[in-house]
């Protein structure tokens, strides 16, 4: 037997095998990161068959998201300089019930009520009324003003904006590494000069738990499960995105964890929030 020749054949054989294995590995790694077009198309077709329509196939994100939970710490507890930033130097404690974590602080025409993680701020001044045309201008000014309130612009996003009685109103929610946090919000009213009122609960990012060994459900799987909902969406789904969610029941705690969810928004404003780990419908 010619061992030399056999070795050559074996070397070539193993080179081919290794090449195939590399190709498979790259394909598998890629499929771990993105959804296949076929999966998206078949999901859309299945939903259409059950009367659930989508504005466009493209609204389904192709990216597969990491199983991450975001730890958020209450702004009222974590932020040492908060009182001075919100009320200015020289503020004083007006009322206190420390066992319930309730405090009222005042400084001139400004007052801040803290109730656990809840904030109620208002400035008792005569507002300078503006018109809706000035929305962008006021929004830009507001972002700078919020920085002074220790709310950095990369840590929140505008959820809603409107004009009412000549005042600019908006709702902001936290954002962590480009992921929207749902369930936490502040409602703000402002004029050209300053912030008139802020109310709601606020948390800041304090850490992330990543579960590498346990992936999230594919968004297509969660969408496909919608056909089993008792009350299926009657309106067209216009937006689908990945976010993190804090249930309302947990909002009055010192540290909360926002868990990964998929959010489906319909044309009528109806919103479906699904747990991205279990596929359970959390909010409808």
């Amino acid at each position: 037997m010619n061992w030399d020749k056999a070795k050559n054949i074996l070397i070539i054989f193993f080179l081919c095998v290794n090449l195939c294995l590399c190709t498979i590995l790259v394909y598998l790694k890629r499929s771990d990161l993105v959804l296949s077009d076929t999966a998206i198309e078949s999901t859309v077709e299945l939903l259409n068959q059950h009367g659930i329509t989508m504005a466009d196939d493209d609204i389904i994100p192709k990216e597969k998201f990491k199983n991450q939970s975001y730890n958020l710490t209450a702004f009222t507890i974590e932020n040492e300089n908060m009182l001075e930033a919100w009320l200015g130097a020289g503020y004083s404690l007006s009322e206190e019930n420390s066992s319930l974590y309730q405090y009222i602080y005042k400084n001139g025409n400004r007052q801040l009520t803290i109730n656990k993680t809840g904030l109620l701020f208002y400035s008792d001044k005569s507002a300078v009324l503006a018109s809706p045309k000035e929305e962008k201008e006021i929004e830009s000014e507001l972002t700078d003003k919020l920085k002074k309130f220790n709310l950095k612009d990369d840590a929140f996003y505008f959820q809603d904006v409107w004009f009412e009685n000549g005042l600019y109103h908006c709702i902001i929610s936290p954002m962590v590494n480009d992921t929207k946090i749902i369930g936490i919000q502040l409602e703000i009213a402002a004029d050209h000069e300053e912030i008139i009122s802020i109310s709601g609960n606020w948390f800041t990012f304090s850490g992330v738990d990543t579960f590498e060994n346990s992936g999230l459900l594919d968004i297509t799987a969660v969408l496909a499960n919608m056909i089993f909902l008792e009350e299926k969406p009657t309106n067209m789904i216009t937006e689908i995105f990945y976010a993190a969610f804090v249930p309302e029941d947990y909002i009055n705690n010192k540290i909360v964890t926002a868990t990964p969810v998929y959010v489906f928004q319909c044309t009528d404003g109806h919103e479906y929030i699904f747990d991205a780990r279990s596929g359970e419908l959390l909010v409808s």
Partner: protein
Amino acid sequence: MRLKKYLKDMTLVLLIFISLILVFQVWFSSNIVPNEAKNISETFQESILEPVLSFFKLNKNSTSSQDISSVFWPQKIVLNDSNKRSVLYYNSEEYQHFYQMSEDFIKNIMLGNIKIKSKDTVTLDEYFSVLKGNSIYLDYDNLYDFRLFSVSICGEADNEWSNDYSSVRECMISLGDNVLNNVSVYMRDYKSGTVFRYILEENKEALEKELDRYFLSHQSASTLSYSFELNFHKQESGDGSLSKLVFDPLILFNLVATEGKSIHSDQNWFQDWLEIESSRAGSILNTFQINPMTMLKYTDMNNARVFVENDGTLTISPNGLLEYHALESGQGLRIYETEDKSAFDIYAAASAAANFVYAVNEDLPKSAFTSIRFSTDLIENNSQGSYTIEFDLCAGGIPVMQTDPVTGERCHSITMRIENGYLKQYRQFVRLYSESDSTEPVTPVINAMDGLIDTLNPQTEYLSVFNVSRCYVDDGAAELLAPQWKVGVEGIQTILTVK
């Protein structure tokens, strides 16, 4: 030529090695194959491994005598001879020595290694009189289903004695008198009230030698008397007057004031211990079957960490309070596997509870000074399938009563509510106690009881006291805990403690 051959060989080996690594990567790095592998593993476990283990009684329901015996031991051992008496608590070397010796002795009788010469029943007076002579009295402090006693002693729930007993509380080994050379064992079945005496074909020499050795090295005069010796077990005293207190005949009284060691309570260790390593909370979560990947969690305003899983909520407070509550809508945590609800009796519940407590405490720091034991009666009740099982954390062998943060009442260190194999509620005060050098005076029981009568102001003719034992009380604030008395009174559910 040789070099070329060598290079070819090396290339081939390298290629084979790389192909193996790539195959490994393909199998275990993708999210597709591991799930399949996991399913195969689960199927193998559910369909093959568990039935086989259950056939050989090796699955998790099988009663682990190791776990039961670690939480089931006499609250005290009393050594008696005709002139002296001595009480031994769990932490002492002598306790361990005499317990091991007594346990081995009873185990050998149960397993038939020591032959029973005769078995008869005796009266209560005869039973009590055993304690006046050379004897070893194992006091378990509470009533227990006989199977728990049996499994903790000999590792088997059923044995030759099973037909005689339903519930037991104590066991006495009598070394008889100077005439007879045989050893006898006395036990009372509390359900029927029958006291059995087993006269054994065993020479008393070895046991007697140990008792003599002990009393030779502990020569101080004994001031201990049993209630029946002082006539405290009868309402009517010798002069015809009626007592407001009637004691169980086997309660021991020390008629003179003594001193007891205080213990030191470390209030902050739990928070420090949890913070050192994040995986420590993880091991507790694992025992409560809470999946970190699917749970919800938050930290409340009092810094208690709350973990929410489908069936329940686990709260870990910085002061060491560990609480689990099953959701009303959920079944709770399954800690005992059974299809037949009627099979879940007090024995199964206590075994499952012991296993669970063992698992929870396995990852907590061990202290040679502290130990855990069953603390309430464990006998079948009217609500079959639903049981509350409690444990005490003992420091130096003496139980430490905790203070309920809500009601302020005394409570046990661990409370479990189990229904048909499902854990509905679990509460544990995770505490760390250490020995202290300071001692505190211990009031004689009878003096301490005077104060109790004034507090209780009984409406009934007299109070029936069935249990008096040493304890400590931890209110969660004091760092030095002095010894007190724990008193059990008929008709009063709350735990009473007096100084």
